[in-house]
């Protein structure tokens, strides 16, 4: 090889590597982080729209439309932090203010276990107001070993504005911790969230098979692609969503309550579970 050919070859490689470097920067700036696999919801259609599932290391907003819809955010947090069955993942940090405990009920660890979560790795941070909750959230998002953050903010707190949500999204991006913001009694407002869900509870499909958490989840905003509207049923046994079993009339496998009739009170009543 002549020296000039070597030189031109080297320049070529250098040019290419500069280009690759540029591409990398471009991807880092715009695209989702490549090494973090998306968290599959378990429903093929929803996963396809979301590009594989919920993006980790990003901010996701859940607007609960009724009392029970907040459970959807808990399900997402279990999905992100790791459920009791896979044994992986990090601790779940749940941040809420004192007001939310009064208005929406205190967190019940046994209830989280019933949903398939891991109460032994649950941290509850109760703050006095929304501003403190946001401060705690940004501390938590800076810590990479955290499994997931669930930030519960009800109403329209002044501290939560576009800047605050950008900061949260940025912190989540840096550390790779998934942040779920649960908004109750609130109207949608501009934010930097990756996805936004309007969720209300859905009636159980069948008379027999009722009681599993099922939601009417509307993806009203998705930074990466189209939006959608699905009915999702949470399966506490494997910590993932599934489509509701429509039209299935097979008998419910669990034990069912005996029909009530008038009995003498002395007779020991069977508990129906």
């Amino acid at each position, binding site marked *: 090889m002549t020296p000039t050919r070597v030189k031109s070859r080297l320049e070529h490689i250098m040019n290419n590597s500069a280009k690759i470097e540029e591409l990398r920067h471009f991807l880092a700036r715009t695209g989702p982080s490549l090494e973090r696999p998306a968290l599959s919801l378990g429903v093929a259609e929803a996963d396809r729209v979301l590009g594989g599932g919920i993006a980790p290391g990003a901010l996701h907003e859940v607007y609960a439309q009724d009392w029970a819809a907040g459970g959807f955010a808990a399900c997402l947090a279990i999905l992100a932090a790791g459920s009791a069955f896979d044994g992986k993942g*990090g601790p779940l940090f749940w941040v809420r203010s004192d007001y939310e405990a009064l208005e929406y009920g205190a967190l*019940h660890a046994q209830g989280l276990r019933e949903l398939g979560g891991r*109460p032994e790795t649950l*941290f509850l941070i109760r703050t006095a107001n929304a501003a*403190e909750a946001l401060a705690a959230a940004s*501390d*938590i998002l800076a810590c990479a070993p955290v499994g997931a953050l669930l930030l519960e903010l009800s109403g329209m707190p002044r501290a939560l504005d576009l800047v605050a949500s950008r900061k949260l999204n940025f912190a989540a991006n840096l550390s790779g911790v998934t942040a779920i913001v649960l908004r109750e009694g609130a109207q949608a407002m501009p934010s930097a969230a990756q996805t936004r869900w309007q969720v209300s*509870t859905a009636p159980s499909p069948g008379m027999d098979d009722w*009681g599993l958490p099922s939601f009417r989840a509307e993806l009203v905003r998705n930074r990466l692609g189209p939006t959608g509207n699905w009915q999702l049923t949470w399966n506490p046994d494997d910590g993932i969503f599934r489509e509701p079993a429509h039209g299935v009339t097979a008998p419910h496998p669990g034990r069912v309550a005996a029909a009530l009739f008038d009995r003498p009170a002395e007779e020991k009543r069977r508990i*129906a579970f």
Partner: protein
Amino acid sequence: MWLPRFSTDRLKRKDASLSEGAPLVVAGRAGNALHVQALDVRAHRLGLYKGQPLANARAMVQALTIIPADDRHDLKLLEQIAEWCDRFTPYVAADPPDGLILDITGAAHLFGGEAAMLTHVTQKIEAQGFTVQAAMAGTASAARALAKFAPGHIAAPGAQAEALARLPVAALGVEDKIIAALRRAGLKNIGQVAQRQRGELAARFGKSFVTALEILLGQHDQPVSPRRPLPDLMAEQRFAEPIVAEGAIAASLLALAQSLSSVLEQRGLGLRRLGASFFRADGQVRRLDLKLGGASRDAARLMRLLHEKLDALADPLDAGFGFDVIRLEAMLTERTEAAITSFDSNENAKREIQYLADRLSVRHGEARVLRFVAQDTHIPEAQSAAIPAQARDFASQSQWSPRRQAGDPPLRPLRLFEKPEEVSAIAAVPDGPPLRFRWRRAPFEVMHAEGPERIAMEWWENQKPTRDYFRVETREGQRFWLYRDGLYDQSGLAPRWYMHGVFA
């Protein structure tokens, strides 16, 4: 240290006019009679004495300023002086009514020896307007006796008995009756008493007298309880000029944290609780208490926690005229293995989570960062206890088992109201599930219901009615946990219904 004119000095500090004019006497009440409880130097020169009936004192000196005693304020001030004395040594005890005990073991060399420390401390207290007599000895009671009867004396180790021997019997600190009896027996000083057979003394004056004598002579030890728990280790920095600047305070804190952590490292210890004391030049002391979830001796980490704490203070640290002493105290230490960077990423992750919990606890208060522990009970609201994350070590193994069986829906709600809320409900049959109910002014129509799951209170709480729980689903699909309080027979025709939780 003895402040012989403590009460009167206190009054004079408050009201300078008392220093002039008539001699000052503080009158106390014993039984039903007033007597002289404290008196100033002028009254003392006129021949008045402590314990004298007030009427006698009045008869002797017509022009007397008499002020009623205020023991509560005296004690408060004594505590404040003790707090202030903390800058000399952490082991300070107030010795009411008018004394202070400082254990200066290992502290004297910081002031250039015992004699220099004694003059330093007395000068500082005199500068505040108190008459003070101080002495040093091997035991607290010996030092007390020397301070009262031979102020300024420093009893060398081993020479304590000699130093005490020359003191009058009054220095024994026992009842006046016994002292009078000792004098009558010709025993004028402690040395003479100490030479007597113990048996003789016990027969005459009782066993407690002998014990008091032996404690004084250093043959028995009597513990002194310090005002604050003693730190295991401490590091402090004194400043020739009080410091005010934030940067200077931070730099000195960092230096202290580093020196503390190096000592901890040598001993293989880690911190669980850190105290920081800031002694202001005007006598105010500000203390901070820092708890850590796991033992640590990382100076940088301690610094960050301290700064968090300082930032989060409701009333910020006010330097005033400056701090002249800053001290870090290791209040609670425990043995830890050497801090090596583990290759086990699991271990590192655990440590980082611990650190995060510490920082959140410091900023928001430890009662606000909670973890859950399963309780062995079937009462729903008592089943999971939320306790501060720093309170103890938590098992990483799950103690929680689901109540439902595979395939079943959740049997316990995700959110449980701390106080169940009463709803008005209509049921088809008296002990059946509700058909519709009203909660928070909104009507709900029940589509599905399952129950009752009867939960009776524990037998020792059998006054409380049993509860029949129903899982209900409304027309819109919201799932709630309702219960009827009491059995139908007991609660009569209008049973009370309560909303206890919301399922996901």
